């Protein structure tokens, strides 16, 4: 009985090979782009025309259709980055590094949009752009964590080493985010009794839910699309970098 010395790669590692990724992910870009456009068109129609005004907030309630999907993505992206970080550390997979690097700025932007729309929403409804509310504060801290990770990526010359180092920071952040959230909530109740969110027990009409979920899907599709495009760009950029180095090496030896 002969034992093959080379372990056959399973389907996942075949798919996750950067070259393979480049070839199969190509077929996802256009379908995802079309899906994104359609769901945004539907979502915007639902949220502007086919959903009622809130009896208290009026038209301002429509901010929700942007705000909530971005808040959801701000957390989803960190989840993606955390699983990618596990991939970087356990399997030292280059595609996992690329996933993390591609996701970090997207997560930062989604978090920033969440904060921005939240403060636009807060001004007319609560009368202030910013409140040191538990959830808002943890979202702000999340933004700082994203920005720190981006800064760390940019500080490294050697991107393959950067991948594993950033993965460690991402995991430390993932463990810490629940602690930060808990401590901020604890701190907030310490300083002011009632938070703004507990007073509203939102019972939404169905048309609002439809609009919200359509926008949720639209933004998630947009994220998936941008993630794939950014990953492809990053892989190609690394290849170009390698080619440039090889060319420079040849120039020296010639």
């Amino acid at each position: 009985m002969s034992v093959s010395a080379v372990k056959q790669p399973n389907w996942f590692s075949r798919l996750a090979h950067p070259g393979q990724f480049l070839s199969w992910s190509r077929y996802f870009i256009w379908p995802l782009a079309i899906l994104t456009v359609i769901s945004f068109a539907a979502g915007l129609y639902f949220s502007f025309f086919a959903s009622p005004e809130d009896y208290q907030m009026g038209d301002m309630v429509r901010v929700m259709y942007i705000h909530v999907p971005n808040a959801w993505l701000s957390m989803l992206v960190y989840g993606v980055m955390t699983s990618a970080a596990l991939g970087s550390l356990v399997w030292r997979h280059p595609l996992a590094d690329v996933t993390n690097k591609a996701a970090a700025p997207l997560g930062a932007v989604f978090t920033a949009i969440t904060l921005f729309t939240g403060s636009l929403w807060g001004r007319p409804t609560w009368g202030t752009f910013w409140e040191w509310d538990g959830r808002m504060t943890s979202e702000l801290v999340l933004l700082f964590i994203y920005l720190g990770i981006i800064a760390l990526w940019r500080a490294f010359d050697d991107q393959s080493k950067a991948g594993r180092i950033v993965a460690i920071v991402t995991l430390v952040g993932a463990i810490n985010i629940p602690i930060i959230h808990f401590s901020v909530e604890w701190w907030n109740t310490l300083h002011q009794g009632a938070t703004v969110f507990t007073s509203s027990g939102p019972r939404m009409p169905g048309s609002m839910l439809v609009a919200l979920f359509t926008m949720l899907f639209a933004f998630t599709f947009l994220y998936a699309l941008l993630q794939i495009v950014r990953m492809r760009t990053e892989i190609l950029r690394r290849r170009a970098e390698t080619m440039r180095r090889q060319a420079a090496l040849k120039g020296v030896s010639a």
Partner: protein
Amino acid sequence: MNAFLALIARELKLAFRAGGEAMVLVLFFVMVGVIVPFAIGPDRPMLTKLSPGIVWIAAFLSTLLGLDRLFRADDEDGSLTLLRFSVLPLEAIVFGKLVAHWLVTAVPLLLATPILALLLSMSFEQWGRTALALLIGTPALTAFGAIGAAVTVGLRRGGLVAPVLILPLAIPVMIFGVGMMDPMTGGGATLFLLALSLVVTAFSPFAAALALRTAGE
């Protein structure tokens, strides 16, 4: 254990015989506390009210400032490579360096708190609580700092990245540390801060050692 103690002794000797950075950090700590009255005015009741927060901010900043000396010098002169191949696992070495770093940077801050207490017109009870909070909380700050220092050890540029990475993560330390001032919730905050300090101190040598190994490859 002998090797562990020898490592701590080495770190302490290095800190006390060369550079005098512990003194500089204390100076910085006191100076941050001193500039605050210039910024907000010398109103004594207001200073009394704000003083625990001011002391915590000063401690935060000086801990972050002292971060860089944790691994960098050892990385540059090659002793970190030697330490990696010593009898101790790298995690234990990081823990030893952490303990030494805490003794060199945090204990002098604690000893300097009475000066700030006088200058910021703290009451005796306030000072006691703040010093206790710092005693419990600074190990967590140092431990978070160790992760930041280990992650950025190989970087030629980007000495500013470590504080920016660590600051958001260390927010709970600040929250519970200042929370200990409140007589109502102080007990809970003390327990949370103790728990946080223990968890982070136990956890960070592993994360920092992993980062140092990766950086050394």
